[in-house]
């Protein structure tokens, strides 16, 4: 078939546009699902929950931060930075307030193939689990923590070379600057079911 035969009709043009798009999408999606292609996540303005069987990370710091709402009012949040993190059995959920509608993402279900995240920065309001820190410093000034990102002078902060959290449960209000390698990705529209 000649190219001109394709460009002449709407259908032909649609095929011309769709084929390369769908092919590229297919490759990318396969890569994302395998964790070969990292994806960037930036969420703010809504509460979402993260749960994982375990999180092992290096380069951890945490300090107080401020989050602004729409009215310009500031609310305190705790900002946690993790330079490199490995998560097993990750679950992320977002619920649309007031509706039985949400989004549930699970990844890293294969123990040999955990989720990897780099340069995580999470603003959180609630964190639970059992944590083991290596070379930890509590109480240092937020402007002097050992990570690239740091907080304001005068705020209570902590940092550690390594962090290991078992049974992680976290309520976050934003994540930024995070690059995820999501293995065994499964994304579903849910009825508002959350990770915990």
């Amino acid at each position, binding site marked *: 078939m000649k190219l001109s035969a394709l460009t002449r009709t709407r259908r032909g043009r*649609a095929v011309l*546009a769709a084929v390369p*798009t769908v092919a590229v999408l297919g490759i990318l999606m396969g890569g*994302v699902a395998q964790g070969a292609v990292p994806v960037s996540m930036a969420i703010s303005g809504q509460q979402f929950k993260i749960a994982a069987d375990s999180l092992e990370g290096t380069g951890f710091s945490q300090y*107080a931060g401020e989050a602004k709402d729409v009215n310009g009012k500031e609310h305190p949040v705790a900002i946690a930075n993790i330079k490199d993190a490995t998560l097993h059995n990750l*679950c992320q959920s977002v619920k649309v307030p007031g509706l039985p509608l949400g989004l549930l993402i699970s990844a890293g279900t294969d123990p040999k193939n955990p989720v990897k995240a780099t340069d995580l920065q999470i603003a959180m309001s609630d964190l639970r689990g059992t944590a083991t820190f290596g070379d930890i410093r509590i109480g240092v000034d937020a402007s002097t923590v050992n990570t690239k990102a740091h907080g304001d002078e005068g705020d209570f902060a902590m940092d550690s070379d390594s962090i290991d959290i078992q049974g992680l449960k976290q309520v976050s*209000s934003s994540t*930024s600057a995070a690059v995820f390698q999501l293995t065994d990705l499964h994304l579903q529209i849910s009825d508002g079911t959350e990770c915990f």
Partner: protein
Amino acid sequence: MNDENAIDEAPGRRERFAAWRRGRPFWGGILTALAGVVLWFSGRLRLDGFEIQLGIEGMQSTLLPVVLVALGVLVMAQPQVRVFYGVITLAISVYSLLGVNLGGFGVGMVLGVVGGILAVSWLPQVAVPAESAAPSAAAPVDPAPDGEEEVCADELLPFDHEPAHGGRHVAVMAAVAVLAIGGTSATATEAAGAAPAQVGAAADCWDPLGWLEWICGDGDEAAATPSPSPSATGDAGAGGETGGTGDDAAGSGDDGAAGMGGPGDGAAEPGGEAVDAGNQSKGKGAGADGRKPASDDEPAPDEEAQQTVQDAAEVELGPCARITFGGGYDINVALPGDCGTPEDANVFSLDGELETRDLQLPLTGINGVGVVNVPVTTDGPRRDALKISVDEVKVPGFWLKTYADNDGKLGGTVTDADYVSMEGNAQMYISSIHANLPGGDDVAELGEKLASGASLVEMLLGLTDARIGLMGATSDVQVWSDFREQVWED
């Protein structure tokens, strides 16, 4: 697909709108703009909630949706350059999978791709004479693009024209094809390279997420139309089961998600308030109780005993230590001065408040108790702190409240835990201790113990219900067992 805006209006107006709509890739533009909106909100669903400033990385989640909305509007305003706008739309939509929350969690990306395909593939229809006459005569609003478009398309592609409803077929096919590959790849963990070959047959309406019944319901139209995708074969079998593959993968994902909710549930709350005054655990200081009953026959607060304690404190902590009695706690130790040994390893900030049932210091392994002078960022450039060096320390009933100053508004975090243990070269920096003596107001007893050589600090830290001004703590290893950290604000 009626336009609600015009439905109540006079027929002439409605026709004019329909003509205007036909003169441009209307649905392509609408879907593209919608994709931008969806991508935008995938980052910010709750408008009245928090919003935090995003860095450079977060920029693309703001910029790309805005660009998509602009493209949607522009492609309708300037149908002549629809191919350019459409291709940009496609490229941005595909990239949004990586750049913006998995392409607006799939939805925005699909809308953008379908919109882009519609925009690229749109062609002006052969004008039925009556129809083409009507808009140009009746609609002086925007006659120019129509005319231009006709000319331009005629010049470029003389045989370009096609009946009107072809566009709808294309839309459905494009949507189904994109969804099919979405369903395949998002659940296929095995096939990166093979993914393009797995484009499902459009006719099978593969809908693993179950959220596109409006397209599946349109089955006749979709099935009757040849698929635009390159390989209609591939997974037709799997697709025929209405997403058999997708559901399998979904099953395992659900299991994982369900299992995940479990582990923390049993552990739940670490026993409410960490400090349990009723629970008189026998710390070292509390051990004093057993040997000598409280001497109730001396009701007056014995200033002599207080003096003894103060003297002991001065010997142990230097001249800067200030011991006071009463005021919520039986005994208070503060270090307001500047007379400790300088130490510059760490810069501290506002104190946290640490409450604990007691500090379980090891009988051996206390490597040193002393006053150091450390740099701080609030309340002066330096201040004194009580530094306790131990091999290990366990803090049961851990409760720590930290402060941050947000332009005069206080906030911070509260952390409680079953216990916190510090091991290996542990140092605690303490600015104050408030404690209640066992058996009430028995300062005399404390004085006696101190006179016999006991360490005031060790005794105080071992007391139950102590509140400690914690400047900081460092250790090689630290375990927070079953902790929960929450943000508080005034």
